[in-house]
């Protein structure tokens, strides 16, 4: 989007220049933008049109995963859906980013380790996701930014039947909806 605006800006500037050079009668009137670009030296446009300056790197929330711009997952104790101290700190940081970009929607996925039954774990995963949603809402994140779902034990992040693996799989994961 930003790049598109920059390009339009360049084109407008080039067009103005073309029109502005009225003294040169031989300059043909362009009937398509490609021709306009071709007749206008890019260097001149860059100097005279501030909008054409190279834009800062764009954070494209529509295509990047939340983790790429600093949103972190939070973890839970076995068969628990209360937010622990470490998770509170993570969610506080997450909330800051989320509130800066109030138009971005997040899907909070609740996950469980492989222990326990399939159905109960789906319910447990949802309680974890809901606990995270409620905590973020209390920190001021808009309700419309937060959706929840549960995958129970069906989508482990780490394979294996050790406490280390289980701990990584008991999480609320932030995804794009």
């Amino acid at each position, binding site marked *: 989007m930003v790049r598109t605006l920059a390009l339009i800006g360049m084109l407008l500037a080039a067009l103005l220049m073309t029109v502005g050079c009225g003294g040169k009668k031989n300059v043909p009137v362009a009937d398509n933008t490609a021709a306009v670009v071709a007749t206008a030296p890019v260097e001149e446009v860059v100097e005279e049109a501030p909008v054409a300056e190279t834009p800062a790197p764009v954070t494209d929330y529509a295509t990047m995963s939340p983790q790429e711009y600093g949103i972190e997952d939070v973890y839970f104790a076995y*068969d628990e859906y209360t937010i622990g101290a470490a998770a509170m700190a993570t969610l506080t940081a997450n909330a800051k980013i989320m509130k800066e970009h109030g138009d971005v929607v997040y899907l909070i996925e609740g996950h469980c380790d492989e*222990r*326990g*039954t*399939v*159905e*109960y774990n*789906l*319910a*447990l995963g*949802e*309680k974890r996701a*809901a606990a995270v949603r409620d905590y973020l809402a209390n920190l001021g994140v808009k309700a419309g930014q937060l959706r*929840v*779902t*549960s*995958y129970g034990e*069906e*989508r482990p992040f780490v394979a294996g039947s050790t406490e280390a693996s289980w701990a990584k799989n008991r999480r609320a994961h932030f995804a794009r909806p």
Partner: protein
Amino acid sequence: MRHDIRRDILATALVLLAAVAPAAAQGEYIMRADRSAAELTDILVLPPEVQAGGAEARVAAGTVDAVIRADLDYSGLFRLLTRDQVTGKSPGHYLIDGVLEGLPTGGASSPALTLRLLSEPGGQVLLSKRYQPGPDRLRATAHHFVEQVIRMLTDLPGISLSRIVFARGSGDRRDIWCVDYDGEGLLRLTANRTLNLFPSWSPDNKQIAFMSFRQGQQGTYMLEAATGAVRLVGETSGSNLGPSWHPGGQELVVALSKAGQPDIYRLGLEGRVIRRLTVSESIEVSPSWSPGGRDLVFTSDRTGTPQLYIMDADGTGRRRLTFEGKYNDSADWSPRGDRIVYACREQEITQLMLIEAGGENRRLLTDASWRNCEDPSWAPDGRHVVFASDRTGVFKLYILDVEDGSIRQLTKGGEPDTTPDWSQ
């Protein structure tokens, strides 16, 4: 003549179990109890006499004979006699025989297969059935006959015609499959490349309700068993867990979290909420009706750990069923109404547990050699239970004879099989 099915003979049955075989084919025993002959009904099965049709007809008769024998053995009710055991002294026993008139072709002009049940000595015909099966219906025909035999002798439903639906696959790609109770006739019912779980047979075995993410979030769906057609029943925001059928066949019971956390709702077959049964801040899932539809057993973690509770059909009269163990879930109420089987997790392993509906006589059905045993579902005979176990490292389905402790493997292959439900 009625034969009493003895129920609580298992006190020491685990001790009697034969050694665990390393690998078993579908439907084969993994553990087999040394059944006491006193509890069994003696029966002699003779292969159908082949009148015409040559070798092919003899193969067909052999198939019928083998299925009859396997079904009778599977029922846990019979001791299969040999001719030697019958000649000489022959106290009261039963005899199955039959006639195959030629090679079965199916249709009205097909050579007939007649199967009979007689009481011996005396040769009184108790049951005589005439079939005209097609060549692909020989197994089903034998199953049908054995079902009639068991109903006649016990006055109770058998399992010969029953089937089991389950979820096969891993991660968020699981489909609904169906298999005959003896491991034959495996059939895939969905192929939507999402997570499908918790299939549940309607009481008339014509429809299968299940949960699916097929539209990106959990919803309750209905599959017509005859056509494979799938329709959406209901999709509310959040969990749509379960579903499970009311014994009357006109409604489902599900766990929905549209009010914030999973609660139990009675749902019409078109998705309308008939009644909300639980209201709490805790997790309430996994409901199962009593066979009369008077009450339900379900899981709640209101005390901090998942435990089983029973409530009346309108959500009142809640009483706690389990007090032992820190993780009790996945209850299924026996079709005879007297007992409930469930999954109990202790010391890092999930095992099957049996308890009377009044809360008495809790007892363990499996042991740690079975690793995790989950999602038990009763057979229509109220004697067998299908469940998922990861004893081989991957969850497969097994069938336990609750009375004598025998266990058979139902499904094979490398993909996980979970959340089975036995037809009624």
